[in-house]
């Protein structure tokens, strides 16, 4: 498996916004001309660290919010040297980002972090199962592109509350991945949560590897099911970040069996092997529990 360690070639770039569109319920897609970051050959699972206020040539060093915001690479267009991010409006930073328009400039830094592991030619035929929840689908789209380019078979399980949140579905289908969706309101696909589909998908696909990103309880359930079935996998985690490069130690997280100390999500991750992650305490999720849909029935 191939993997990129962090910081091969980090750069700070004043990128030009190509488009910034409202693509789903609370979801926006921003495409940026970022030739320097693209030149650094970013890999799926890596992220960019974004100043959410317009880059100001006169300099407004006190613009609020101060800190950068991390976003996974949603897609990369190597030919045009563009990158895309898919972002969900959460608070101040992401709200401000929605105000940016094409041709505005924005200060981004990247590519950062360790990527997903991907099979090399030597691995032979390879089947991947990708499990995304909500905006967690973001890093999995660029991953799917790469896996498909390498000729892998990719099955995608993609869950959200409602169909309007499945903003990446069309792009995934275009990439030739076979997608199955869940929504809580039955507006598209199967009613339920995405992990409801997992046991059956494992039966059907016999995946060599599982990739996941989404809410922690969802990823925890994916990890449990994957381990029960002895399938290796990786998940992309989040943490509040300041520097994004390993200098501030702000993004600490304990891994299983690492009594020695914390790892840094920004440089040791954000992608970690699922069997090493100690997921945050949360309710049980999906397959193991009656879902809302079943209760409704």
């Amino acid at each position: 498996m191939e993997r990129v360690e962090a910081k091969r070639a980090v750069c700070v770039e004043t990128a030009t916004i190509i488009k910034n569109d409202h693509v789903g319920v609370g979801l926006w897609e921003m495409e940026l001309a970022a030739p320097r970051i693209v030149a650094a050959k970013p890999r799926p699972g890596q992220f960019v660290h974004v100043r959410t206020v317009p880059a100001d040539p006169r300099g407004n060093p006190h613009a609020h919010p101060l800190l950068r915001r991390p976003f996974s690479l949603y897609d990369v267009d190597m030919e045009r040297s563009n990158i895309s991010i898919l972002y969900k409006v959460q608070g101040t930073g992401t709200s401000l980002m929605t105000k940016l328009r094409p041709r505005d400039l924005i200060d981004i830094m990247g590519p950062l972090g360790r990527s997903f592991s991907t099979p090399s030619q030597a691995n032979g035929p390879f089947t991947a199962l990708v499990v995304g929840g909500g905006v967690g689908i973001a890093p999995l789209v660029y991953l799917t592109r790469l896996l498909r380019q390498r000729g892998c078979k990719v099955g995608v399980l993609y869950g959200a509350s409602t169909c309007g949140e499945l903003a990446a579905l069309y792009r995934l289908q275009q990439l030739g991945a076979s997608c199955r969706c869940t929504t809580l309101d039955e507006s598209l696909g199967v009613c339920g949560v995405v992990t409801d589909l997992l046991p059956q998908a494992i039966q059907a696909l016999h995946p060599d590897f599982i990739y996941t990103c989404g809410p922690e309880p969802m990823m925890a359930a994916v990890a449990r099911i994957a381990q029960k079935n002895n399938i290796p996998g990786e998940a992309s985690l989040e943490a509040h970040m300041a520097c994004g490069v390993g200098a501030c130690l702000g993004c600490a997280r304990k891994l299983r069996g690492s009594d020695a100390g914390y790892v840094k999500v920004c440089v040791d991750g954000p992608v970690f092997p699922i069997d090493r992650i100690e997921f945050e305490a949360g309710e049980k999720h999906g397959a193991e529990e009656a879902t809302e849909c079943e209760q409704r029935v």
Partner: protein
Amino acid sequence: MRTEGLAPDLGVDLGGIKLANPVLMASGTFGYGADYVDLVDPADLGAVIVKGTTLHPRAGNPPPRIVETPSGMLNAIGLENPGIEAFMDEHLPRLRAHHVTVIVNIAGESVDEYAELAKIIDGSIGVAGIEINISCPNVARGGMQFGADPGAAREVVSAVRSVTSLPIVPKLSPNVTDIVSMAVACQDAGADAISMINTLSGIAIDIEKRRPLLGNVFGGLSGPAIKPVALRMIYQVYRAVDLPILGGGGIASARDALEFHMAGATAVSIGTGTFVRPTLAMEVIEGVRDYLVVHNLESIDQIIGAAAR
């Protein structure tokens, strides 16, 4: 407003530490100099002050460790570090190889530990000075108790003084009633310069969970929000004490750095500002040089303390 050709002298002497320029990376915000290496050559900086280092390795505080606040951030890292030995063996040789001016920030849990740390560093090559962290608000033992009481500060500084001839620079906490008496105590105990300020103690609350946001409850406030407090304390200490001052707290531009120099700082340190703009230190060096050129000044000495006299 870059003016080529003219070259004012940016070199300063920080209590015996000779710096090619007055812009330093603040402890705990630039790791061991390697994390930003694609963006900033640490050899171009006045100096790098490495992460607070303890005698034994420390795992640090449980997350969340940082939270953003208006024009600032709270951190509660809890002095995570690999310990002095690992620093000396792994990080220092690399820094030395890259010709970086290194100041080591040390934090002890007792007076003896401070002295022991200083002794270990004293015996090594490649360290330009020691910053004594008597002010870290994020650890249960050590740290704040020395930073809140002039008597305790005097003890720590004296103990370090007695074991090393390296320049020593105690770093003061702003969480005190009387910053001048802290600086005077350090001066009396043989400090070569004063570093100030460390972070202000603060908290933030998650109104949905109705709990403090940081794993450690208390964190240290840094960033532009604290700049007026930092400037005030530097101004007061400059007027009361004869030692050079390493000033920092919220610097986000060359203009900010100039304010610190004029309040009395011989050199400045940049912390949180680097997270926002990784190349800020280089921009500050250039901006300060431009100011000197535009105002026909030959050296930075001409503005140090200019507003405090």
